[in-house]
């Protein structure tokens, strides 16, 4: 563990989330432990279906049936989010932490104007006059770089990038400590994506909130995140400084990932990717979940589940690093 002087803002311990289905429980998040420090940008990457969104929603306590937290703790500024009731959470939400979702088209209520949706958030937590709400809304819109006239617009009248910005404006309404983002840019094309990422980064520097940023785009986080967690089949397999992870990936899966995407610069080199395909979470392989695809598989990998092992500043879930 990376020891820090101050307590982390968010601490996730051994979190497990199950989907209860006809064919039994699917463990979509399996003993995940994470921490997020104040003002930090934590990237979480992993292939689709590896449980990233589930993890995020579990942290935000937004899971709905059939998903449910099976075990584990989530400590946020010293409060245990897991044991809180809905009504206790209500006062916590948005003021302390807010959420930005993948597709703003779906995350914004299509029948309410942006302004109304902002007002809803204010009304739920603060007693402000109409005038105050308006002023604050306009201010927020300017912060994220949208003309405040769009407060009166409905979501469908805005472009994808503007919607995402409006979402971010909403998320910053109370300048929370933590903003949780689930692939906020994946619906945008590269140019818009780039512009939005820059904005997020700039706002983060300005307001000092911490961010959990989920994506499956390795390249994207490489430039923006401070620390990186790599997920595979419901588990975090490697956590570390982004720079470090990219420069020297340790888990065989991470190594494979690094070899999976071509680049537009540098020499052209043949890439191999990772043979095989990600496991079905309803029937995960025994032992290490990566072992069927792992080039370094050992007999022990097939029966035993690896734990986290520290190597340099990183944590790796692989027996290769079991000292």
């Amino acid at each position: 563990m990376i020891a820090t002087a101050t307590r982390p803002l968010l601490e996730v311990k051994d979190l497990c989330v199950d989907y209860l289905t006809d064919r039994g429980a699917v463990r979509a998040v399996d003993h995940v432990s994470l921490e997020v420090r104040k003002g930090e940008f934590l990237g979480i990457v992993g292939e689709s279906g590896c449980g990233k969104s589930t993890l995020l929603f579990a942290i935000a306590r937004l899971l709905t049936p059939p998903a449910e937290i099976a075990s584990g703790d989530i400590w946020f500024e010293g409060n245990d989010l897991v044991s809180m009731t809905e009504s206790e959470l209500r006062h916590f939400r948005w003021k302390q932490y807010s959420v930005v979702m993948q597709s703003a088209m779906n995350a914004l209520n299509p029948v309410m104007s942006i302004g109304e949706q902002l007002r809803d958030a204010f009304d739920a937590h603060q007693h402000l006059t109409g005038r105050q709400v308006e002023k604050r809304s306009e201010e927020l819109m300017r912060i994220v770089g949208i003309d405040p006239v769009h407060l009166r617009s409905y979501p469908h009248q805005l472009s994808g990038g503007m919607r995402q910005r409006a979402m971010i404006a909403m998320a910053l309404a109370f300048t929370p400590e933590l903003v949780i983002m689930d692939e906020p840019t994946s619906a945008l094309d590269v140019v818009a994506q780039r512009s939005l990422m820059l904005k997020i980064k700039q706002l983060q520097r300005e307001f000092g909130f911490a961010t959990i940023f989920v994506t499956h785009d390795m390249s994207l986080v490489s430039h923006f995140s401070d620390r990186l967690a790599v997920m595979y089949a419901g588990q975090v397999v490697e956590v570390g400084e982004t720079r470090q992870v990219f420069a020297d990936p340790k888990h065989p899966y991470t190594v494979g990932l690094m070899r999976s995407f071509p680049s537009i610069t540098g020499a052209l080199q043949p890439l191999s990717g990772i043979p095989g395909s990600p496991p079905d979470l309803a029937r995960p392989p025994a032992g290490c979940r990566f072992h069927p695809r792992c080039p370094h598989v050992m007999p022990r990998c097939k029966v035993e589940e690896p734990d986290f092992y520290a190597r340099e500043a990183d944590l790796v879930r692989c027996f290769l690093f079991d000292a």
Partner: protein
Amino acid sequence: MSYLVRRLEFFFITLWATLTMNFILPRIMPGNPAEAMLVRYHGRVSPQTIKAIEVAFGLNSNESIFQQYLEYLRNTVTGNFGTSVTFFPVPVGDVIKQGLPWTLGLVGMATIIAFALGTLLGMLSAWRRGGIFDAILPPVFIVISAFPYFWLGLLFLLAFALTLGWFPLGFAYDLTDSINLSWSFAGQVLWHGFLPALTIVITSVGGWILTMRNTMITTLAEDYVKMARAKGLSPVRIMLMYAGRNAILPNLTGFAMSLGFVISGAILVEIVFNYPGLGFTLLQAVHSEDYALMQTLFLMITLAVLLAVLAADVLTAILDPRTREQG
């Protein structure tokens, strides 16, 4: 506004098609109204008289069918629906005027109550997904909705009117009273309308519960509902403004369209409960081949449904900003 323009197109085309069908259908029916009149007169009219009546009706007109069609369209537009054979010599307009308020009142109120109730129950049922309420209510009402209207009406009549005597045996208000604006009269109307309305509500509420429940469940899974929860909004506000408002939108037009079905059912209810509405009049018009009355009734009913659809469309346009601009 192209959404409303398209709906208006639908409105007028349907109206025109109905008018035309109205014109064609009775004309290809066998028999003629004078013969039909015999039935009305319990056969106690001499054939000579029938001949005379035929002439009086202008039935043996020898205008071309196209001329007749134009004439018909013109008359309809100017509100001249002709004379009823069944209720000779009463103008069709008067026959309809007499029954319309009752049918509209009964069917309209019952349908709106059913829709409102069903929507509310469906909403709650989806909101409390998996609760006892949700486990019992929808299936029970779904099964009830498969009951024949008229049969349920008969049972109610037997149980609550005939055996227990809680409700009257029929009519829209006390027999000897005349229509007036007083509380006691309003009370009578409610008392008389209760059983027929109950029949309609009970058999139609299930459909709304299910539709609303299903759309609501789909809506509840939407990100914006999750987002609303994340924002820490109060559950009531989420249920009504975020999930409910979006879930109800697609049902509005469906609701209006289904009015046609309800009106259809009302015919049977009116017969069972001896309720003085249009439904029964229509059946009679058909039996006596009363072209004019039949056409106008069918037109009225379709128009009522179409207007309701149009109203629902306008409401949808008001409630859903997306429809206002695009297609």
